[in-house]
């Protein structure tokens, strides 16, 4: 094992991650993992001094020591009260990952035309394949947990889409710990081949009283003219801490529609990095971030236009009630030469209590001429004119407020093409808002 500089000032968390790493057997990807771990150890956990971590303090987490979350047998996994994101049709398929370990049946190798393997099997059969999808080590602060995932992931899923598929696939990530200090590093790779199309939903839920620290990474590669609708839905309990990084790489003419839905978790940090690396690639990202109780939702979107004629849209709706805090940082980077790039960032925040907080920061970094880049962010309370209008029609205040909240979310919900997912997400959203009983009647 090569020498890694042991930092004496390392926090208990960092030391425990290093211990896990030292105990890992070498595999086909060892050089990449080692490089990632070295970067991580050098940089340490992010702190509010890092640009994309300004509003999220990990000091409490740093004081903990973590161990690998256990592998679970299928019998130990009880179907949790997950949202019914798929309809009941016989073709609807769900893949199960528990603490990052896939529980695949023999007939799961191909579902509805998607080729499915565990990453462990890839390591055995075709290790060079995965190397294409391992990100290079980066010092960027938003990628700190990706470094750790690269160094420590034990298993995960590799999905290869080769044709045009009509039926959505659900990946249910279950967090199920044996103790308070468990950590899991799930990894999913979605390889969408030339001209393919698919819908993939990833949902994160928890089971049992111990929810492991979840440090997940999903890597999506869209080849030429591929189309993908991707959902990530965070629906864990108030005790859960989740760092999720989503990397999307898009080739010529590919189209990606992405929904990030934060409904649960005590601390959810969701990063999306979109890389429009070839001409004509297009990314539509929608984020619905709901904070209630004293939850903390921190969402970072960074979209890079790396080629001419690329297009991106970022639409975020943040709602914060009680003592919660919701953060949405978005950035569009237009590289030199990426002429005719077209981007729009829109973030609207809705504060439902005086003790809640929403921070939004849209940013632009443009190195090319002839581009169209728009951004806007507004945060406020319910519109008093709209409220008065409804009151003047006899609606009681709670109903009027609920209707306005519901209307606020509609922009994102209406973009979803999976009807079952939309209605389940709508239901779950409603249940976290004040006056949920009233809101249900509007549907």
């Amino acid at each position: 094992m090569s020498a890694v500089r042991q930092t004496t000032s390392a926090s208990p968390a960092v030391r425990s991650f290093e211990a896990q790493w030292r105990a890992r057997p070498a595999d086909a990807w060892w050089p990449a993992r080692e490089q990632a771990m070295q970067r991580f150890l050098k940089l340490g956990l992010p702190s509010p001094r890092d640009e994309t971590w300004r509003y999220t303090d990990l000091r409490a987490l740093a004081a903990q020591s973590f161990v690998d979350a256990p592998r679970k047998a299928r019998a130990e996994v009880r179907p949790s009260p997950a949202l019914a994101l798929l309809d009941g049709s016989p073709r609807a398929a769900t893949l199960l990952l528990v603490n990052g370990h896939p529980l695949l049946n023999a007939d799961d190798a191909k579902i509805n035309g998607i080729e499915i393997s565990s990453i462990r099997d890839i390591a055995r059969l075709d290790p060079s394949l995965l190397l294409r999808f391992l990100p290079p080590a980066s010092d960027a602060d938003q990628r700190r947990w990706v470094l750790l995932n690269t160094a420590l992931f034990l298993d995960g899923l590799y999905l290869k889409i080769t044709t045009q598929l009509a039926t959505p696939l659900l990946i249910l990530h279950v967090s199920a710990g044996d103790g308070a200090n468990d950590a899991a590093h799930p990894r999913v790779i979605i390889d969408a081949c030339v001209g393919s199309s698919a819908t993939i939903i990833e949902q994160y839920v928890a089971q049992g009283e111990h929810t492991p620290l979840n440090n997940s990474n999903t890597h999506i590669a869209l080849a030429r003219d591929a189309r993908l609708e991707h959902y990530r839905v965070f629906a864990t309990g108030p005790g859960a801490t989740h760092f999720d990084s989503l990397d999307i790489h898009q080739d010529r003419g590919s189209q990606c529609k992405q929904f990030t839905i934060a409904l649960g978790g005590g601390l959810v940090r969701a990063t999306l990095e979109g890389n429009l690396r070839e001409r004509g690639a297009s990314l539509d990202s929608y984020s619905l971030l709901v904070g209630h109780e004293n939850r903390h939702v921190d969402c970072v979107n960074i979209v890079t236009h790396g080629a001419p004629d690329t297009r991106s849209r970022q639409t975020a709706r943040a709602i914060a009630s009680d003592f919660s805090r919701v953060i949405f940082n978005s950035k569009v980077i237009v590289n030199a030469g990426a002429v005719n790039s077209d981007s729009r960032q829109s973030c609207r925040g809705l504060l439902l209590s005086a003790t809640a907080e929403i921070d939004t920061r849209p940013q632009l970094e443009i190195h090319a001429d002839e581009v169209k880049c728009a951004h806007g962010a507004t945060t406020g309370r319910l519109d008093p004119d709209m409220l008065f209008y409804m009151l003047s029609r006899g609606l009681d205040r709670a109903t009027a407020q609920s209707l306005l909240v519901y209307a606020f979310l509609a922009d994102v919900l209406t973009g979803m093409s999976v009807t079952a997912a939309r209605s389940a997400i709508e239901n779950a959203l409603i249940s976290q808002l004040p006056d949920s009983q009233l809101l249900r009647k509007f549907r």
Partner: protein
Amino acid sequence: MLEIIDLTVRVAGKEILKGVNLKVNAGEVHAIMGPNGSGKSTLAQVLAGREDYEVTRGSVSFEGRDLLALPAEERARAGLFLGFQYPVEIPGVNNVYLLKAALNAKRKAAGEPEVDAYEFLALIKQKMKFMQMSEAFLTRGVNEGFSGGEKKRNEVLQMLVLEPKLAILDETDSGLDIDALKVVSMGVNSLRDPQRAVVLVTHYQRLLDYVIPDQVHVLTGGRIAKSGDKSLAQELERRGYDWVLESRVA
């Protein structure tokens, strides 16, 4: 039905209404006219229960109840309706849903059961036909993307469905072409009834060619400066509001 005594109202620290007195009986149609900035819209909004308007003096009784003590929603359920000068757009809230919720709120307050979904749809389609509105409005957000005239028709449609005892229409005629004005007037006239009253707030006399008022009042400088029958409106049209001010001084 409505009795306003010495109503004085401040908006953002500025006194806009300076002692308004007005009595409207059931079965009557009153027109309140006046130049811009005279306080007409403030009067309409304060009667409907707008909260950021501060009543510093005076009283308003509606069917014997202290109107000012009621929140906006209870005034609506008691039978008061405000047709807005600038109806707000509420994207994402369905037009029909709002109307149904409004009707049910009123029925609930009256101890009646909620309206049946089919009956409601039939009712609303009938009223929309009367108001010459396209059924496309059924599926749209409240006033969302409506033209000025469509918004005003929608206000009158709501009034017809809710059948208020007292309707206050704040410049419902402004921005309407002559055909729309006729439709809106027809809507208002259809509500005329010995049990109901209508207060038309308007800048121009032309609406009063179609909805004949029993009384006309001129509101200027926060007070009712002159009252009369429908001929007062015609005289105002001829001589302008300055004439009222001058005749007061004289």
